[in-house]
């Protein structure tokens, strides 16, 4: 079954080589997706390797003929109706400049206004063409060459060319722009070279293998150089991209409106139709209070809301007027990093005992009414390179926890808390308020059962960050969505203990650093996946954190909203969404 869309994509990318696909890192694939993909490549009559810069070989996206869950059904396209305004109950992003923004809620909106160079399928984690129709990686992993789509226009009429890519990446690196996320996603970026209008080479100062995955993230989407230059610091209030919707207006604290881009003729490979979007306008209403936001779904003031409360999920699932969509977010789940640099959590036995002592499944059922999945390791299960082997490592086992504590020398005295050398076993647990605070109370209760005392501090976000940096915690908290397992470097590499302090385990571990560095520069995808599997295993062996739960977006929508499917981080591709009369 090859649809018109797929056939077209296939004609566009005729250079496919099985060897280079794997070697060059051109394909992001979950392990399960390996075999259909290889079969697809084998289908090609004449695999050709195209020499690239520095003797590189071509890698092309897998749009060939791989059957993917996102394949459109003919019926779906026929039914789709054009028109209507989609009202979205949402929260207000600080800025709409993808190069600058550090807010997840904004990242999900960017895909409406901007197109990424590479598109990622939510289910299979495979690459599809975006603004780049094909790409090559040099043998040394330091140069990425992109063939860009021709005939693409920014909303202000500026043609999309290699210069726009160069401008976007260069401006991200400019200190004056104050990029918060994109600068991290560019890694060791050195420069971009414009070869011609539709070819650009991105050079890195060292091999950087997360780059293709990172490019599927909306923060690296090209912006209009003309508009960005003219607007300067105000580009975030008047964003101009190539996406299926154009920015119309932003009324601070009230709403933001996007209108259909009538000229849109370059759908991403993950999209399910061609031509302009179905919806006339998207009105993103800013409703800070979650209860009120959810209420607007039932009152009809919103057609789609972000943030259905967990206790409402079951009721709405049973109601045919609504649909509840809970896409899991890849990257690191919510975790409680354990401070391995201070007493007493510097002791591995104690850390392991903590992991055995907490019944996370019960905690999650209590807090989330079964709407979330317990995390088992440093990556959430939909992540690229997830290692399922971690799932059996720390089952809830109170006896085992007590045994480990005894072994570590922590014995029960007369009080409720274990002691060693006259010291009480007391841990400082610093977390945020709300659901995290409630989770903290439950974890505290489980640890009390085995004789571990916990001082729980529920602080506002900014105060927790300050406390972690000062290493005042034994138990901390963090969550980090990401399209690549390089997120493990962010959370466990020793260079991130100072500065950003995203590594809240606080301990310098040269062995772990080396494993992380190797994996971040490994070009062979199979080897890279294996390395990340080993790293996940290692982190759990070291019991560096308590996995909490996998993050999920809680989308609620009226049943009349059709054609919903997901961006790589769990946002909705509104391009394919339509409203039934």
């Amino acid at each position, binding site marked *: 079954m090859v649809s018109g869309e797929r056939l077209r994509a296939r004609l566009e990318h005729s250079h496919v080589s099985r060897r280079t696909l794997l070697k060059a890192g051109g394909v992001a694939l979950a392990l399960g997706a390996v075999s259909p993909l290889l079969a697809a490549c084998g289908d090609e009559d004449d695999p050709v390797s195209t020499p690239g810069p520095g003797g590189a070989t071509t890698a092309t996206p897998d749009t060939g003929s791989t059957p993917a869950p996102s394949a459109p059904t003919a019926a779906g396209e026929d039914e789709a109706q054009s028109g209507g305004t989609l009202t979205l109950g949402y929260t207000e992003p600080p800025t709409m400049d993808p190069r600058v923004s550090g807010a997840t809620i904004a990242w999900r909106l960017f895909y409406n206004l901007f197109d990424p160079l590479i598109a990622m399928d939510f289910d299979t984690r495979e690459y599809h063409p975006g603004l780049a129709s094909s790409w090559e990686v040099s043998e040394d992993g330091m140069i990425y060459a992109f063939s860009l789509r021709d005939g693409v226009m920014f909303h202000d009429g500026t043609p999309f060319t290699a210069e726009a890519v160069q401008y976007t990446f260069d401006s991200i690196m400019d200190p004056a722009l104050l990029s918060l996320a994109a600068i991290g996603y560019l890694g060791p970026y050195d420069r971009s070279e414009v070869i011609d209008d539709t070819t650009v080479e991105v050079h890195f100062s060292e091999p950087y293998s997360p780059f293709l995955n990172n490019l599927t993230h909306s923060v690296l989407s090209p912006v209009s150089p003309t508009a960005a230059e003219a607007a300067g610091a105000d580009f975030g209030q008047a964003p101009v991209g190539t996406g299926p919707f154009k920015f119309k207006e932003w009324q601070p604290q009230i709403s933001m409106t996007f209108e259909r881009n009538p000229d849109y003729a370059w759908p991403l490979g993950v999209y399910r139709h061609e031509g302009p979007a179905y919806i006339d306008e998207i009105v993103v209403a800013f409703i800070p209070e979650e209860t009120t936001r959810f209420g607007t779904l039932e009152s009809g003031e919103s057609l789609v809301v972000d943030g259905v409360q967990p206790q409402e999920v079951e009721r709405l699932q049973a109601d045919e007027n609504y649909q509840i969509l809970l896409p899991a977010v890849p990257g690191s789940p919510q975790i409680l990093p354990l401070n391995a640099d201070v007493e007493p959590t510097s002791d591995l036995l104690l850390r392991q005992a903590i992991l055995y002592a907490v019944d996370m499944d019960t905690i999650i059922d209590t807090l989330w009414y079964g709407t979330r999945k317990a995390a088992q390791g440093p990556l959430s299960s939909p992540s690229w390179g997830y290692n399922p082997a971690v799932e059996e490592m720390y089952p809830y086992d109170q006896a085992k926890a007590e045994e480990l504590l005894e072994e570590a020398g922590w014995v029960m005295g007369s009080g409720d808390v274990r002691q060693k050398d006259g010291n009480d076993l007391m841990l400082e647990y610093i977390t945020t308020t709300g659901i995290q605070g409630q989770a903290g109370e439950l974890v505290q209760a489980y640890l009390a059962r085995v004789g571990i005392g916990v001082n729980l501090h529920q602080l506002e976000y900014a105060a927790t960050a300050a406390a972690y940096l000062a290493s005042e915690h034994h138990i901390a908290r963090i969550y980090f969505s990401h399209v690549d397992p390089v997120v493990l470097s962010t959370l466990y590499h020793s*260079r991130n203990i100072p500065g950003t302090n995203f590594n809240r385990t606080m301990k310098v571990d040269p062995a772990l650093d080396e494993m992380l560095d190797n994996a971040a520069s490994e070009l062979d995808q199979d080897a890279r996946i294996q390395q990340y599997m080993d790293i996940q295993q290692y982190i759990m062996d070291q019991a560096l954190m308590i996995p909490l739960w996998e993050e999920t977006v809680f989308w609620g929508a009226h049943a009349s909203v059709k054609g919903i499917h997901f961006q790589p981080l769990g946002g909705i591709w509104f391009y394919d969404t339509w409203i039934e009369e």
Partner: protein
Amino acid sequence: MLQYVRTRLLLTIPVLLGVSFIAFSILHLIPGDPATVLLGDMGGGAASGDMSEEALENIRRELGLDKPFLVQYVIYVGGVAQGDFGRSFQTNREVRGSVLEVLPYTLLLTVVGLGIAIIIGFALGIIAALKRNTWIDSLTMTFSLIGLSMPSFWLAFILIGIFSYRLGWLPSIGSAGIKTLILPSVTLGLVASGIIARLVRSTMLEVMRQEYVTTARSKGLGERAVVIRHALRNALIPVVTIVGLQFGTLLSGAVIIETVFARRGLGRLAVEAVLRRDYPLVQGTILVAALGYVLVNLLVDLAYAWIDPRIKYE
């Protein structure tokens, strides 16, 4: 009189300077670094990938956070003196524009809320005073006690539940038009009316015992004229003081109300700014709120002279 107003207005300058310095100090004293907060997603996630320490230092430098505390304050005050309130750390928009844009909405909400509080408060207070020690008195005073102790967000959700979700008469969110104003201002007004009602009752009772009320009655004036023209006017002074103070309460109440009703306003802006350690925006909202408070107090003082001709300002 004019001289008095001019002096009072000039006095607001040192007051505002003091307020801004205290706010600036508190912001720097409470834990939380704006640069680190920028990197973290308030949703609980962290935003940036592998950001180097230099990149973080760069953010601090660009925001001016690398300078000593007092230097930062002097630079800020210097900017304000020239009408430059700086740019928000989070949105990079000019603070002046962000504040001015939302200010009318908060003013409208507090003025209408105060109006509702005054109407309800006076009505209940007068009725309770006239019918003192009856069941009507007990009922109105119980009502005012509930108003006093009711959390405004709770009342807001109850009202939304009834009038938006059940009856569908009024929108639960929004900032445009009179319809969106009703629920938030009623919530604010109900909560503030309790204390006004209690005060009106007690001062009315006191005034009604005065000899001039007996005199008015003995002149043969109707009860209505006695209450409104003679008693109420004299009961106003302490009440006006409280109403002026209530303005501040209403301003802080707007923080919650604006968030719950997703209504545009200064309170919502301030709360976001504090949570995100957005120093320039916090300063901007605090200065405007402080200025409002000072001006309202001036109005209250001037109102005394109007209410009681014996009071004169030289």
